[in-house]
């Protein structure tokens, strides 16, 4: 089993943190290996930004994604740049539909998540759009691991924003349960 996930958007959205949280979750799975790599431009805010997470039950050699199973897009520019790496027959495309209009054909396996809209309008802080998104995609990456995700998110964010982040995470998860692809 080798699962490859790409999170991508622009600097400041917390893209790399999404990958870091996924990687840290794997401390709770003794039989699984994980490799999280990141690429970003010289200026972290506003520039293109991406992280690859590979999870496997075997030792991970190539540490980046070369045949992604899941791609999570948080910006239009990221979509333009990285969508060609996806395989229309197998890659599930998750996208923030506040930032991205639609996924062009031939991709049909898609899941729209209103992460930035919910973060801005309902949670009153767009900074948690990434955490909402994590809540919405966790079952697609590691099924039945939402409790572990909660614990790892709690350890990965500043304490003063814990309540907000937990709310975002739960809201994202609820969104998935109500709208799963």
């Amino acid at each position, binding site marked *: 089993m080798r699962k490859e996930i790409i999170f991508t958007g622009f600097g400041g959205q917390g893209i790399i943190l999404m*990958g*870091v949280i996924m*990687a*840290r979750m*794997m*401390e709770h799975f*003794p039989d699984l*290996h*994980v*490799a*999280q*790599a*990141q*690429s*970003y*431009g*010289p200026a972290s805010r506003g520039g293109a930004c991406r992280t690859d997470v590979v999870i496997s039950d075997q030792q*991970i*050699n*190539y*540490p*980046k994604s*070369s045949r992604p199973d899941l791609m999570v897009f948080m910006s239009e520019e990221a979509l333009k740049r990285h969508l060609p790496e996806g395989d229309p027959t197998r890659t599930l495309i998750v996208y923030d539909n506040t930032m991205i209009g639609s996924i062009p054909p031939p991709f049909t396996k898609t899941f729209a998540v209103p992460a930035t809209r919910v973060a801005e309008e309902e949670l009153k802080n767009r900074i948690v759009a990434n955490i909402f998104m994590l809540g919405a995609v966790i079952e697609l990456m590691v099924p039945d691991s939402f409790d572990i995700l909660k614990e790892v998110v709690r350890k990965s964010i500043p304490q003063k924003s814990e309540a907000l982040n937990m709310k975002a995470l739960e809201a994202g998860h609820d969104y998935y349960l109500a709208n799963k692809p």
Partner: protein
Amino acid sequence: MKKGRIKVMMGNEACMEAALLAGCRFYAGYPITPATEILEVMSMRLPLLDGLCLQMEDEIAAMVSVVAASWGGGKSMTATSGPGFCLMQEAIGLAVAVEAPCVIVNVQRGGPASGQSTSTAQGDFYQARYGSNGDYSLIVLCPSTAQEMFDHTIKAFNLSERFRTPVIILSDEVVGHIREKVFIPDADQLTFVPRKRPTVPMEEFIAWKADADGVPPMPDFNTGYKIPVISQAKSLDGNRGNAKEADENIRRIVSKIEDHMDEFAEVLIYGAEKAETAFVTFGSVCRAARSAVDMGREKGLALRSVEVKTVWPFPDELVRRALAGAKRIVVAEMNLGMIKREIERVVRQPEIKIELFSKIGGIYPQPQEFLRFLEEKR
């Protein structure tokens, strides 16, 4: 099974954890992508251990203070990337000349000059060996995983003490920034090489007189021993040496390392050991090559990948043995053919084709590309 704990951490963090376990209590550096995390975590952890972490005005000062801290009796290190590594070269030569054990981490990025700060590269391969002036030798280790960032750092501190030499960990952006599970053994599960101390009475001590292994014992400053430390070629008692003394001094600091390579040189083979097609790799590229070997196997293609873990002094004999029987050798590296020169020097059989699969510009090669290269260049 060793006792310890498993933690997901960045390669750069794993390096820091190992350094602290090995007893490093002095760090001096200057921030630079993609090595900054080592300075960051050192600045948080060292003060809690009564250590000292200094952000210096530049990498020249950082490296000079690392040499001084080593002579002051501590285990010391620094970390940097290409542009900073350039500035350190003079003082790395100083560390060689005054035989100061210390560890230098170079997390490589694109060059030359400022190059590509956030992208990976392997263009400092020769600089790590020949960056300072004059004849000398030192040890350079190349990790491929976060775990190896940990293991090689422990090894680097031990070798630096064993041979009284700077040891360079030549990492790259992929390895420095990757997060993986790292096994951190408990301290009592590891072996640490202590500094070699004088055994003769203080008045008989001669600072630069080596033991049979070529390594002189090293007292600390302010302990009563007469220790003339100069950067010039010296006589045994630490005065400026004449031609013969300079000759002996230089030959000794080279041979103390190169005559004992069997103690530390490491070359691995991944895949089919007798395969006629062999990749040669070092650093992060080893990982992509491994996946290429696995993909080849699935297609019925026998491949081996020779991984050079200690790149300097170049392990000629081990590499020759690892490549024995290979008819086609593809050297894969993120530069325009540096380790390839060494392979050409070592193999020297005109009937064997040595090809270069090169990636520059900050691009990390994909496993499929290795197979495509084999296919297209046939």
